[in-house]
């Protein structure tokens, strides 16, 4: 009666701690230089292309990739450290985050050599921004209902249709998208979608910003009208995108960004209650810290599995499920605990401003990148229930 679910206590190797010091020192310099304010969580308001290039110059983008593509051939655990330190500092990572986490690895696996040589080194230098074109107006979680068509033409494809909720499309240089190249078959409704590399800012692509409830314009509608994509921009098997999506999800779903999105309010609460909190505050903080520590240990464990070449899809889904529900509830728990914080606490205004933003951000956390419902379906499949 042994369950096969394991989260081994992976420890970050010593070299990670040296790297962590370097990242912290770099971020401290950037903060001192006024690049960003670590107490201001709405970092998505700041597009920071110069910061992106400086992160690239440090060798912290595409750091696990082969050197011939500009990478450093370092471990996933080292990348993990860079990611979590950036996130906790509220650094403006939007310009490079998607490319580094997701798009680069897709290109590495499925792009032809000329494309890899052209684009991967630029990602590593922090020069290019990527978006992901999955959802459509009537196809969100149900990815395989996508209708945007890629029709065969001389030397490539013509794209017609609309992607939606596409983060960063308004600043992106590229998008990795799925388009319909064939209708689904009776036996396999997932058949018929193909993954493409799309060069943005080209004729036939119109990006319309969509206002979010946070007051930001971070996601977009992207309308394609007879947009041409050349043959060498097909990524992987034509009609076979469904085979390619799963392994990437483990990377996308288990990282520190899946529980640290609203972390800043916890730091600020600890500051507000001071060194001698009352019992209620102490218990509340203690529970939150215990939960945070546990999720991070799970997340690091999954990073260790990835480093070992495994595909921990179910484990990653568990991390994202628990992590996003936690980071969604966190601002509300902090608000509860802050109810009796002294009016005179020096950071009271900062905390209130942060809570205001975190509470508005919270609803999206269990939707983006795989809803809670989708994740629980994947976990249930892993349990042998479906």
């Amino acid at each position, binding site marked *: 009666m042994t*369950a*096969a679910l394991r989260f081994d206590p992976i420890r970050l190797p010593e070299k990670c701690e040296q790297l962590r010091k370097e990242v912290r020192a770099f971020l401290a310099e950037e903060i001192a230089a006024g690049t960003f304010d670590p107490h201001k969580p709405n970092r998505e308001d700041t597009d920071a292309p110069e910061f992106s290039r400086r992160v690239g110059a440090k060798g912290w983008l595409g750091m696990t990739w082969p050197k011939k593509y500009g990478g450093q051939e370092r471990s996933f655990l080292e990348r993990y450290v860079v990611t979590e330190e950036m996130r906790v500092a509220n650094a403006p990572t939007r310009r490079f985050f998607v490319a580094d986490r997701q798009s680069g690895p897709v290109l590495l696996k499925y792009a032809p050599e000329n494309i890899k040589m052209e684009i991967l080194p630029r990602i590593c230098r922090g020069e290019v921004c990527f978006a992901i074109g999955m959802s459509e107006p009537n196809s969100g979680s149900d990815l395989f209902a996508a209708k945007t068509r890629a029709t065969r033409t001389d030397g490539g494809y013509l794209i017609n249709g609309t992607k939606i909720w596409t983060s960063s499309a308004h600043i992106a240089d590229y998008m990795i998208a799925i388009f319909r190249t064939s209708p689904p078959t009776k036996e396999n409704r997932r058949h018929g979608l193909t993954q493409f590399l799309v060069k943005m800012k080209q004729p036939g692509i119109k990006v319309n910003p969509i206002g979010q409830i946070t007051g930001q314009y971070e996601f977009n509608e992207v309308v394609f009208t007879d947009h041409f994509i050349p043959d060498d921009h097909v990524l992987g098997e034509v009609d076979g995108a469904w085979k390619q999506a799963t392994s990437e999800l483990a990377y996308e779903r288990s990282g520190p960004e899946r529980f640290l999105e609203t972390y800043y309010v916890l730091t600020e609460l600890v500051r507000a209650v001071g060194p001698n909190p009352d019992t209620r505050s102490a218990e509340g903080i*203690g529970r939150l810290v215990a939960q945070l520590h546990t999720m991070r240990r799970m997340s690091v464990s999954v990073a260790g599995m990835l480093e070992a070449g495994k595909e921990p899809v179910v484990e990653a889904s568990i991390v994202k*499920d628990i992590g996003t529900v936690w980071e969604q509830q966190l601002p509300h728990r902090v608000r509860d605990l802050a109810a009796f914080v002294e009016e005179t606490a020096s950071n009271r205004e900062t905390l209130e401003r942060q809570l205001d933003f975190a509470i508005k951000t919270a609803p999206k956390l269990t939707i983006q990148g795989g809803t809670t419902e989708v994740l629980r379906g994947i976990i249930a499949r892993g349990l042998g229930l479906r």
Partner: protein
Amino acid sequence: MRQWQDTGNAVAESDNIVVETAEKIFADLADPQTINNDKKDSWQAPLWRALSEAGLPLSWVPDDLGGSGASLADGFALLNAAGRFAVAVPLAETMLAGWLLAQARISSPEGEMTVLPASPKDRISLDADGALSGRARGVPFAKTARHFAVLAHGKDGVSIALVDAARTRIEAGLNVGYDHSDTVTLDKVQPVAIKPAPKGCDQTTLMLMGGVARSLQIAGALESMLDISVRYSNERVAFEKKISKFQAVQHNLARLAGESAAALAAATSAADAIANARSFNDEVYLEAASAKIRCAEAAEKGGGIAHQVHGAIGFTMEHILHRYSLRALAWRDDFGSESYWAVELGRLVANRGADELWPLVASR
């Protein structure tokens, strides 16, 4: 046995001789269904005998002090396995007692032992005549133990003593899992042996160690609750289909898997931290306290789901579910509840200051 279908991970078969031995004994003599059918508790004596013959209760006692000298890590893995079988003999308690005695280089006697105090709030004092006095509540398996390992406070600091249970007063009680949880009163009791505790070994150390033991047991119980809940949902038919095919049930089981995973991750991480620690510093404190807090929360949430999936049958004495669910809930109370540890951890974090929180978390 359940296997993940799409991860390709190896099944968590033990690669550890201590755990292998224990699992074999548990499977032969502590099968939850067999035990549950046995109204006379006649399974207890053969189980304890087999465990003792294999040297498992004294795993954490070095050879020269009468034990089998297993590593801390192996002992923790053994406790996790014991949780998977909801083992209801004082294996964890005797292991902890032997470990505590060994800290002061006191030999362990044969037979069942337990440790006291078992709550951070209770204190046993040592007077100038070398006698021990005080009251310890919620002491697991005190009623059946032959000896107690006692941590006591005297004017020269902390001491560790071996006490004959017959010289104490015991008010028997049962915890919510129907295991003994007793009040032990010592009134000027002369110990069998007593020595000063080594530097860095105090009541907090004992509570953290006991808390991690309980965390591993809870995690093990949750693994089994997940296992039997999944199996049941694949057997039980309602509305003309297996209940495992209902999305509401699937999502409940997915959450149970998450709670089980979180408990296991927290507990094994804390065990690993203690097994490799040179001292009980803030980092180890974070790990051990977090494990107890998170595992206790998982016992409530996860156990609740396991019962919901089972419906009425899981609420019967005839079904084995309660052996896991109620014990996991009971284990929350031993060596400091989750509320206690949350307050302590919260104070530690507040005292270190806001900007030291992330470095503490990231240090693990």
